[in-house]
Every structure is written in structure tokens, then in C-alpha cells.
């Protein structure tokens, strides 16, 4: 269930929950003056905390490392397609709003929204 490398430009190592060494895929794109930070869950290749559980802490670590302002970026999480037979490993992208409550923090993106930034 390896995540295809086209999903990310680099592997980003971060401190997960309880400082567990963790990894995710990372893409940063600028489109129409907006910076999109896209984190990709690596499943078996991630030895620690998932990108969703790491949440804002991961976003802060990326911003600190890349010299970005968390308030000025759009932050996406990606469930990559791993060619699994199981439907819950299909590709999904979510925009994350850390100011919203837990129930409303994630908005699933349409294919068009994803294409506009990534193609």
C-alpha cells in the first residue's frame, strides 16, 4: 500500500503526537497569489502520527520550516489513492480550517477544485 510518489514533491518529517517521529508527503503550490500547502498521508511509510491527528501542529511545523504564515495559506489534507481494493483508501482532498470547530473543520474538495491547483 505504498503511496505513489507523484502525490508529493518531498517527504516532510515532523514531530507527531507526543513528539513521535512522523512523516508526510508535501506539496506547496502558488496559484493566483494564494499559497496552498498540501500534506499527503503516507500510511505504512509514516512511522508515527497521521496528518489528520497531527492537524494544526503539523501545519505550524511546515510553516515554520518553509517561512510561511499559517494565517495566509490554504491548507489541504490528502488521502492518496493507494490502488487498494478497499474503498476507504480512495483519493480524497480536504481543505482544513483550523478556526472552525472539529465538526466543521474539514471541507471535501471537488475534483475541479483539486485540478485547478494541482494541474
Amino acid at each position, binding site marked *: 500500500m505504498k503511496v505513489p510518489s507523484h502525490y508529493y514533491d518531498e517527504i516532510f518529517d515532523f514531530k507527531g*503526537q*507526543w*513528539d*513521535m*517521529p512522523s512523516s508526510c508527503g508535501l506539496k506547496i503550490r502558488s496559484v493566483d497569489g494564494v499559497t496552498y500547502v498540501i500534506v499527503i*498521508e503516507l*500510511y*505504512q511509510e509514516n*512511522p*508515527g*502520527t*497521521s496528518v*489528520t*491527528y497531527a492537524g494544526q501542529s503539523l501545519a505550524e511545523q511546515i510553516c515554520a520550516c518553509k517561512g510561511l504564515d499559517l494565517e495566509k495559506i490554504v491548507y489541504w*489534507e490528502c*488521502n492518496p489513492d493507494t490502488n487498494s481494493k*478497499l*474503498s*476507504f*483508501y480512495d483519493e*480524497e482532498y*480536504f481543505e482544513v480550517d483550523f478556526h472552525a470547530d*472539529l*465538526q*466543521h*473543520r*474539514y471541507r*471535501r474538495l471537488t475534483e475541479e477544485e483539486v485540478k485547478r491547483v494541482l494541474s
Partner: protein
Amino acid sequence: MDRIKLKLIYPKWQKLRGQTTFNLPPHGPVAFAATLPEYVDVSFTDENVEEINFDEPCDVVALSMMLSTQVKRGWAIAEEYHRRGIQVMAGGISTMLHAEETVNHVDSVFLGESEGRQEQVFEDWKKGCLKKVYNYMGQQPPIESVGPCRRDLYKRELYNHKGVQMVDLFHASRGCRFSCYPCAVSYLGGRKFRPRPIDKVVEDMASIDNNRLFIVDNSLAQNKEWEMELFRAIAPLKKKWISHTIEDDPEVLDLAAKAGAWYVYQAVYDTSDYIKERVKRYHDYGIGVEGTILLGLDNQTVDDCKRLIDFLGEIDLDLAEFTVLTPFPHTKVYDDLLRQGRIFDFDWDHYNAGQVVFQPKLMTPDELQDVYDYAWKSFYATESQEAKMFRLFCNVALREMNEGTYRPRDRKLANRSFGKEVKRNIGTK
């Protein structure tokens, strides 16, 4: 202070309604107790089988928690001890899964595996500088350091049902190379399979005063060579054991049967011929099968669930256990359902795998709850769970009689079940 008196508590939880309750001697507390410094004296209470005596003198309390449904009770116990001015530590699987909240209710949480770490914890406690968090996540100790559990702490008569001793839990490995959708094991124990040295396993297993065990490893089917070596090594002990999945290979199944495989837990996730054949292959080797059936996955409608339940009647399962999908923290299912805004209940007391806490995709929560209830009722309609268990029990008893290892039930405890008096109908009008 020369010696420390530690009160070790395994909090109770609400058992699932309508199911036969069996209390097994818990593994986590006695595995933890085995790692304590020599100067710590332990008094153990499993609250599922006896009341906690809060007035029992002790210097410090440790909560060992495995299930999400234990954590709120653990927090309440901590509050009671805090009223008495006694510090409380917490550790175990559900402490790790719910650490962020648990740390607000206890004086110290221990995250990770305990071997080689408790000396430091208790030295800190003695100096009055117990840390809020002892964090050893992702830093597994050498597997060779895992020693025999402190099973001497069990009050054995409390794990006895009408004279029949319950199985002892045992682990031959830690960690898991799989990372399954609803499972948190890879977060807890790492994604690397860590088998214990075979000689240690044999020595440990031989020392247990019980011929029936439950090997609680997540899956024995992780390393075929080790698995086969394990079965060859434990066969002379003549123990009978339950386990999770065994490698689907005739040679391995044959060795497992010879090593005392009694019955296995096997996931039944579809109605395929593969599942039918898989169950048959276990049976061909004399190994019983308890199907584990997870209901509420995103690709399941009510009709799909009912078809799956009907299918169980065709594959001759010995037992079946039904659960509803439950988004335990640190699982992919938790991440997915959280992002989709589908978790509507965060009360950990409801995370018992029998209560719906999320919005299923292709049915309503009520429909899923109903299909779960239907599954239990339907599977056990013609023969009760207790009767099916009795058949499995007879099967193992016969094998033990043939091998000369059978121990008759303890007549002194024939009228007691898990420490409580029971009325028996046999011989009464």
C-alpha cells in the same frame, strides 16, 4: 521510605447488553507489574470482578486501562484517590489512545511499553517530582526484555465460571506490520512485527498454571518461519489455545493444530468462496473458528449486512462476534469520519463497538444499530452463545482427556461465577 505500596487497578466497564459475560484475567496490569522495581509491593484489583477498597492503605495508585470504555471510570477513580491525597498514574492502551484527556485527570501518564522504564518513574515519585508525562511512544524496548507477567497477582477464584478456569492471556510478539483501517495497534506498538525469542515464549508459557490460553498477538500470520518455529516449540507443552488469524497454509495449519490450536478469531468481511474455504480449512485441521464481523462499513447497506449475516449460516462458524465500526482515536477510520463530520458522539463510554457513534454512509445510525442487534439474535437464534461455547469447551476437554492434561472443574466453585454466587438448575425440580 524503603518499600512502596502500589495499588494497581483495572477499571470496570459496562458490558455489552444481551451477551454472555466472561471475565478473563487481564493481561496489561500483570505485564506492567512485571516491570516494576523490586521495592514496589503491588496490590491488584480488577474492578470487573471485585469492588475497589478505597480505604486500603497505599502510597500511590496506578490505573491500567485497555478499553476506551474504561477511561472515564479511570478518571473517576483518580478523583476519589485525589480526595484522599494519593497520587495516581495511568498507563495502558486506552491511556495512550486518550492521553490528551487522561493527563488532565491523573498525576502522570505513561505512554509506551513499560520494560526498563519504571525504575525512573518510581525514583521520580520518591523524590516528589513525578513527571506529568512519561513519553516512550515509538521507542519500543528490546523485545528480549519482555519477561513473564506477574500472574501471581490474580485472585484466581474470581476468573472462574462454575468451576471452570478462564483462559490466561499470553503474548508471543508485539507490534504489527499491518495497519488495518479500524485498528490502532500500529500507532500503539509500532508498525514493525517484534516476535519474542522462542525460548522465552516457551519458558513463559510453561510457567503458567493453566492449560488453556489466549495468545493475544494481533495476528500470528506475520512471519511464517517464526510462526512455524513457535508452533513446533510450544507443541510439547500440550497447552490448548485461542488466537487471532493463523497463516493460511496447510503446513502452518497442521503445525498449529499439533501445537494445540483450539479456535481462532477470523474476520468474515464478505460472502466469498475464499472466506468459506478459509473457514473450512481451519475445520479440516480440527481448529474451531469464531467469526468476527464488522458492520457499518461505507460499502454496506442494510441488505448487504443481512446477506453477510445469512452467509454465516452457510460456513459453519463455531461462534460469531459482531461489532459496529467504531472510530477509535489514532485509526484511519477516526481520521476519515472526523474529516467528513460524521462522528456525532465523543462519549468514550459509548465506544464499546456495540453502539453506533457515527453516521454510516448507506444507512441511518438507527438502521445500523438494528442490524447489529439482528445479527446477534439471528446467529444465536437456534443455539445460544453459551451452548455454542459449551460445544467448543467439550471439544477441548476431549482433546485434553486424550492427551492426559484434562483438569476436572473445581467442584468448590461450581456455584460461583466470577466470584459471585450463582444458582444452578441442574438437579433441581
